[in-house]
């Protein structure tokens, strides 16, 4: 069988092949355009979409924190003026960028409730995989790129080609979904499989209109295996904090201060199994030292204690995330001991 190509006009031939191909793909995409949101059913995308909507609303009070508060505080049970704009693995860059974004289109809130779990102060792989991939936009990237690591920059720049990247939402079409999945399928097959497998839990992860998310496993509690894993995690990890996190916390509180926003630094919940281990390993003391130092530095920030509220193990799903019962308990605690206290004492 022959294997020779002799096309005298390959250049023009190829040009027309590409033109027709693009037209065919465009027509296909247009035909199924109206189903785009059914197709974009990745939970992170839905969360991002919901958060975009939250950022466009006017809030008097705002929670900027990480996943512990996203699944742990339901603002609907507290006040209609309170929005939970937390984002998983946001570190301190996240709240800073989200606040900057919010202030561009909305007036400054009176008060921001800020929390970052002790783990969030150190370097985290999940910052790249969650916040950078699903929440950071190009404007954000230009602000912080100098402080991002090389893999983090690459993650942002290639996120366009990743499954369910923010750019699917940004371009806002099925075409983008298909193209990203195509590139993803070829070039990042593991991520594609992950994205596809996560589709099975989509629909459960939906932010409320005030930004609260029930964990997909919110009905379950930790079992013996989870507790054992968490114990081991507690033994294996030392408290660390990064200079970058301190820098962006500084920028965040200064930005809020400039805009006349009061900041309440509250503590997130922690499972009892890990709290006792951290007491014995000195982890908690190291964390308290950091908070004490920040207290001294930022006298305009209200620090509400430096001890996390300890919740029993059965109030958690398999990790640090509260389940339904836990979220109800922490929401009540936050409402009574933090929100009402400081919102009433507010200077505004």
């Amino acid at each position, binding site marked *: 069988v*022959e*294997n020779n*190509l002799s096309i005298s006009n390959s250049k023009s031939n190829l040009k027309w*092949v590409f033109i027709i191909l693009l037209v065919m793909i465009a027509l296909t995409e247009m035909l199924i355009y109206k189903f785009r949101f059914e197709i974009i059913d990745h939970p992170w995308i839905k969360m991002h979409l919901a958060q975009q909507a939250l950022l466009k609303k006017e809030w008097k009070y705002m929670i900027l924190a990480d996943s512990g508060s996203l699944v742990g505080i339901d603002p609907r049970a507290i006040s209609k003026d309170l929005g939970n704009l937390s984002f998983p693995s946001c570190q301190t860059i996240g709240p800073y960028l989200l606040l900057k974004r919010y202030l561009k289109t909305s007036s400054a809130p009176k008060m921001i409730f800020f929390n970052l779990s002790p783990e969030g102060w150190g370097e985290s792989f999940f910052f790249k995989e969650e916040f950078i991939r699903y929440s950071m936009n190009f404007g954000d990237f230009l602000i912080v790129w100098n402080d991002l690591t090389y893999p983090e920059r690459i993650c942002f720049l290639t996120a366009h080609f990743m499954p369910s990247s923010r750019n699917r939402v940004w371009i806002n079409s099925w075409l983008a979904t298909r193209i990203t999945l195509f590139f993803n399928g070829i*070039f*990042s097959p593991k991520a594609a499989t992950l994205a596809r497998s996560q589709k099975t839990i989509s629909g459960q992860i939906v932010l409320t209109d005030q930004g609260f998310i029930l964990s997909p496993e919110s009905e379950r509690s930790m079992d013996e295996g989870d507790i054992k894993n968490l114990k081991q995690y507690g033994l294996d990890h030392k408290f660390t904090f990064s200079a970058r996190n301190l820098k962006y916390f500084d920028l965040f509180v200064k930005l809020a201060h400039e805009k006349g926003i009061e900041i309440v630094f509250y503590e997130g919940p922690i499972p009892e199994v890990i709290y006792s281990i951290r007491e014995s390993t000195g982890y908690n003391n190291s964390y308290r030292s950091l908070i004490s130092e920040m207290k001294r530095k930022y006298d305009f920030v209200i620090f509400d204690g430096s001890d996390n509220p300890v919740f029993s193990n059965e109030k958690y799903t398999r990790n640090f995330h509260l389940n339904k019962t836990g979220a109800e308990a922490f929401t009540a605690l936050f409402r009574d001991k933090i929100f009402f206290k400081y919102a009433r004492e507010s200077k505004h």
Partner: protein
Amino acid sequence: MPFNSIRFFLFFLSVYLLYLLLDHKRQNRFLLLASYGFYAAWDWRFLSLLLVRTVVNFFTGLKIYESEEPKTKKFYLLLGVISNLTILGFFKYFNFFVRNVQTLASFIGFDTKFPLLNILLPIGVSFYTFQSMTYTIDIYRDQMKPTKNFFDFALFTSFFPLILSGPIERARNLLPQIMAPRHVTWDKFHEGFFLIAWGLFQKIFIADNLAVIQHQIFSHNTPYNGVLVLLAGYAFTFQLYCDFCGYSDIARGICKFIGFDIILNFNLPFFSTNIQEFWNKWHISLSSWVRDYIYTPLFLSLRNIPANLRLYFTMLMTMTLLGLWHGAKWTFVIYGIYQGILLVIYALCKNKVLSKIHFKNPFASATWFFARVVFMFHLTVLGLIVFNSSSISQATEMVKALFFNFHLLAGAGLNSMLLKGLFYVTPLIMVHFIMFLKKDLLFILKSNCLVQALFFYLIFYFIVIFGEQSGKQFIYFKF
């Protein structure tokens, strides 16, 4: 950095764009640098191995050419060949050899314990060893002259599209292309684009989807069911073909983009009517290598043995070595012996039986042709069931089930697997059938623009919607 990764896409894009801007000499230096970088991305420690091999082959090649004395020529040839094979043997076969010596020793009553080494197999070692050896052997045979440019030679031994899994290119074909200025034409770009797209389709849509089916059956424990084993055999045969042919097509497509013409590795092997034809169409770069560098010299060296016996012995030996080339496993050896036996049987039947069968009626002739194609295909499937088995006992159980436990099994998910398998394989069979009828592997590129666009459109959506995306490694990487 496999071809189906974003890292490779970015790597190749940057290499290609810069490559187009450079003159010929700088292109070669840049490709060498890129090739070393590409190989180091897998495991930088083996770069030294690659470098040693390059130096040894470069100097032995020069010495063979410069030497006047046949004995000296032979000495340098042996030096080159032995050093290549020693490296290959050590990394690939040392533990296999030790284990088998130990088994043999204990069988005859010696209780010995030889130490096994924790050796990591350098990726692509079997491919680039064979490729490098063509250089010294061809110089010895006066089939080519050595290059005096070390960097060009180093590029030949490390050329990134070929270093991991071939095709095993001959020095006399690749080196002149490295040394002479290359032209990137629209024809080559067009062909390269087709080869890469078709290669990715074969890998992601066909091979990786079929892998799921065959794995379900091969990973099962005994007792096996013959029908399922046959289905697994079909699935693995097409998987292996699409995986390796897909890889070779992508490699050839990349080469076309940068102006190289590389040997065709597969030429519609499933349309073969006999085993000899099959090996002329399957993994052509290896089978032709084995023919030129093992079979022919071995056949010529056994002058004292009667002609027929010499032929059969050489066939058996050559195919056994070809089986062993795939790896240090007895199933590979048995696969090689099986192929050797098929070749011997064919050689015996060819003149006495097969050459006498002719049909004047075109329908009868076509039926005879397809009957032979189907028969040959099933012989291939049988061999590949052994090839893919994890052990001899698994291979035995599976082959036994094929012949003695062949009945439909209710509730085994057979229908679903069969339908899925047909869905994945049908596009391949259709395209191959047209290629075969038109006697042209590139018929699509000679069709009108609309047909070509439709072809690429279908490839695009089949990969996007139905592609198996668990990132399976190319099978031949482990060889």
